[in-house]
């Protein structure tokens, strides 16, 4: 029997401009992947329901169009790459067939033209000896190479938006850097807007224009990357930034720990700030009502009653300043 309703994503709003890159940041089960799957309308029903809200893509509400229309957008206008490239590729199809399939479907190419285009794409994403690798199967590729194929596939129809869900989490750092540089290069080359879903705050700092910080399915803070890292306003953002070890800082710096555990989404109090049980800045008002988004600066919004700037400077908690 159902224990209750789980709000995986609860009242999340964000926007993304043409050619811009946005990161959705948060820990596991904060709803970052679910929010992206919703954009693609890939939430399995049942049990998942998009209860409310709108997803406007190029002026069109994606929640209102037919499944048929959605199929053309998915993979065509909006493409997605996932965490595990090995489980996203079809093991019994050659690389050339997998790439060709979406080219034939979305771009109406015939088989030989699709194969030729597949070759171009493999070269574009930097697969060495692309001609020889066309007829290989996914298991003959390393994890990094498989993810390159996924990127090639995602870009094959020149999408306006690419959603990358933890694209490099299972991949080694030196190869991770290669892939992220590739995605970044393709973004500037083709003007594709990008949503990167990640828990890695370093990747966000290096590659992304704007950030959305989520906790327990809700938006805690959003703003331009430089601003969020230099002047975070939400206690959760501050805690997150101060809890990661940094290569460039002296080792004597203590990690500031966010005490407690992420909440159980079923038992979450709906009329209070989701972060309240773990928050060390909490004031009396936090126990009375739930904060709404407040403007902190240009495109910078946060949901918190407390002015952390006054407290954190005396305690030296912000990691951005040394």
């Amino acid at each position, binding site marked *: 029997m159902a224990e209750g309703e789980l709000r995986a994503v609860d009242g999340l709003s964000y926007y993304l401009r043409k050619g811009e890159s946005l990161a959705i940041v948060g820990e596991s089960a904060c709803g970052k992947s679910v929010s992206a799957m919703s954009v693609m309308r890939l939430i399995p029903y049942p049990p998942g329901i998009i209860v409310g809200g709108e997803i406007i893509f190029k002026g069109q509400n994606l929640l209102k169009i037919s499944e048929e229309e959605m199929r053309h957008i998915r993979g065509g206008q909006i493409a997605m790459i996932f965490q595990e490239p090995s489980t996203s590729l079809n093991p019994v199809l050659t690389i050339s067939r997998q790439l060709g399939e979406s080219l034939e479907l979305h771009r109406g190419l015939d088989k030989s033209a699709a194969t030729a285009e597949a070759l171009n794409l493999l070269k574009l994403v930097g697969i060495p000896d692309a001609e020889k690798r066309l007829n290989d199967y996914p298991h003959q590729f390393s994890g990094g190479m498989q993810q390159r194929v996924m990127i090639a596939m995602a870009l094959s129809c020149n999408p306006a938006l690419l959603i990358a869900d933890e694209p490099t989490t299972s991949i080694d750092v030196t190869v991770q850097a290669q892939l992220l540089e590739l995605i970044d290069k393709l973004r500037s080359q083709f003007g594709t807007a990008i949503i990167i879903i990640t828990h890695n705050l*370093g990747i966000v700092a290096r590659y992304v224009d704007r950030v959305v910080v989520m906790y327990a399915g809700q938006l805690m803070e959003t703003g331009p990357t430089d601003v969020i890292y230099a002047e975070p306003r939400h206690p959760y953002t501050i805690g997150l930034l101060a809890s990661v070890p940094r*290569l460039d800082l002296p*080792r004597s710096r203590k990690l500031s720990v966010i005490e407690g555990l992420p909440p159980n989404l079923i038992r979450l109090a709906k009329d209070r700030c989701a972060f309240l049980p773990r928050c060390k800045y909490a004031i009396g008002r936090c126990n009375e009502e739930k904060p709404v988004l407040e403007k902190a600066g240009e495109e910078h919004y946060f949901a918190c009653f407390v002015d952390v700037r006054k407290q954190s400077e005396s305690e030296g908690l912000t990691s951005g300043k040394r």
Partner: protein
Amino acid sequence: MASDDILIRVEDLVMHFPILAGVLRRKVADVKAVDGISFYVKRGETLGLVGESGCGKTTTGRCVLGLYDITGGKVFFEGTDITKVTGKGRRALRRNMQLVFQDPYASLDPRMTAGDIIGEPMLVHQVAAGNAYREQLAELFTMVGLEPRMSIRYPHEFSGGQRQRIGIARALAVRPKFIVCDEPVSALDVSIQAQVIMLLMKLRQELGLTYLFVAHDLSVVRFISDRVAVMYLGKMAEITRSDELYDNPLHPYTQALLSAVPIPDPVVDRQRKRILLYGDVPSPVNPPSGCHFNPRCRMAIDICKEQEPELRDVGGEHWVACHRV
């Protein structure tokens, strides 16, 4: 340095795994997981072991614990070659060397309570019984930040971070001198990672432990370790003090590895030099000749393809294996 300052000494360690094929399961090749490495861990220090997947860091950790029959080389624990110790002696040795695993989901028996999981090593090694057992068990729970009343719960009732605390308590139960931590935080969320890292550091100080900390996350390894050893394809590339690692990396691989890790501060990160490596890590079945890193190295010259560089001391406990340094 006095030799009794050294708890673990590894000399020319080699660990090859055979690849068997065909109906007769004949050996066709070897996976050269660890291919001749040497290092030491001083009493009370943390040595970090980093590298990408397949570099042999986990295998090294397991060899040091005597969990494999090593192909070649020697592993000394307090001056005793552990590969030569058998039977009862080995068991006594094992009590002093424990392991914390990467995956807190797979490394706890789902049918045992947390109390039984943590207590089992105490019973096996006859560390305590009766009242002393119960007292020490409660103490272990408190030590790792769990409540003793949780001892009747089963692993599935705990979160990932709490399970890792159980894994740590289990390792501590027999009061070891040395613990190999194999990727102990990589399966955990960012905020929980910090909790477990701080716990490990606190325990090391309170109990005077020595760690070999195996992980792929350079930032975490540098933070927790006194010295860091960088491995590449079964070889040691560089060993240096943690402070020196970021400021003065000498091996081209270490430099590339460091630059591949973005710093979570856009202003700082923008000013860093980026070195992008080409290609993937080659297979350890058929490593390149000479320096294993030479096909991906931007500094490589002819000698790098022909001759394997030796790990040598460049001063101040800084060791590097590169012809160009």
